[in-house]
């Protein structure tokens, strides 16, 4: 679901977009599956972390995509450290 919070992408080089919790949930779920997490754990971790990050985002007028990535990785670490590492580093592979 979209919130009235702007997400600044790539240090402002790409068009801003509204925060979309569904998009975030899908990306966390996908990161968990990428490191062979079981489906149940992936769904549970994605739901929990998305809820926490949505509360955090709601308290800000605007956030950067890098901030979101860092906060997601921090909270995902509790559920699946490998997924947290992959989530944080998947934009730093190439």
């Amino acid at each position, binding site marked *: 679901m979209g919130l009235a919070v702007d997400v600044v992408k790539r240090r402002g080089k790409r068009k801003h977009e509204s925060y979309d919790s569904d998009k975030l949930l899908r990306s966390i779920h996908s990161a968990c599956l990428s490191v062979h997490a079981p489906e149940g754990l992936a769904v549970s971790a994605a739901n929990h972390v998305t809820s926490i990050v949505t509360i955090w985002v709601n308290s800000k007028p605007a956030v950067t995509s890098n901030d979101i990535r860092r906060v997601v990785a921090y909270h995902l670490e509790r559920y699946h450290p490998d997924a947290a590492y992959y989530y944080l580093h998947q934009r730093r592979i*190439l």
Partner: protein
Amino acid sequence: MTLDQSTVSLSIVLLAALVHASFQLSISVLTLMSGHALGRKTARLRLLHLVGGFVLGAIIMTILLLSFAAYALGAWLGSGVPTVLWAIGAGAAVGVGLSVWLFYYRRELGTILWIPRGFARHLDTRAKRTKSATEAFSLGLTSGVSELLFTFVTISLSALILLSLPVHLQLVGILIYAGVSLVPLMIVGLLIGSGKKISHIQRWREQNKRFLQFAAGGGLMILGTYVYTEYILVANILGSL
């Protein structure tokens, strides 16, 4: 040509292939493609097809690039390689080796390479959209070309060396180069196919990136020195005797 001279030439091709093997662009693209595929719940067999297609594409592109370079240089030079070309090749190897030491990875976390960002994003997008073995094959071909930024020296020097070999040994040289240069890609492909976590592979790459950078740059400098010694110094000494 005696067997000894052929052996020396093939050993230089082998060294060039080892240097090529230490470059990381294709491995990064393979890691990205596999990560995206796993994130889409791609079945194991389909993932194996994707990885196989990618590796096959990279192998074929390497063979094509080396064959084309050897053919083009052969057509241009006729018989015999002038000393100045060996000097340019040796100098380029040392220069690129130094650049690799200084610039190969960006000064950021991860394994981000010093390639244009728009280009990297294009490869990332293609890796994300790759869903069939055919697309993976063409991504493998593309990554072979993309890596030319770093591998043009090893490919050009190997092509020059191949020109001085008899035809049957030229084929052996091409196969040695293609086989050895893509061993790391095949190993990573096998690891992914056998269920190794992408995060573990990436963590290993990140922890060892400075060593790989040192090996690639150092290897290029050794290659340049080897070529200079064998084809300029020794040739001049033998010529003056």
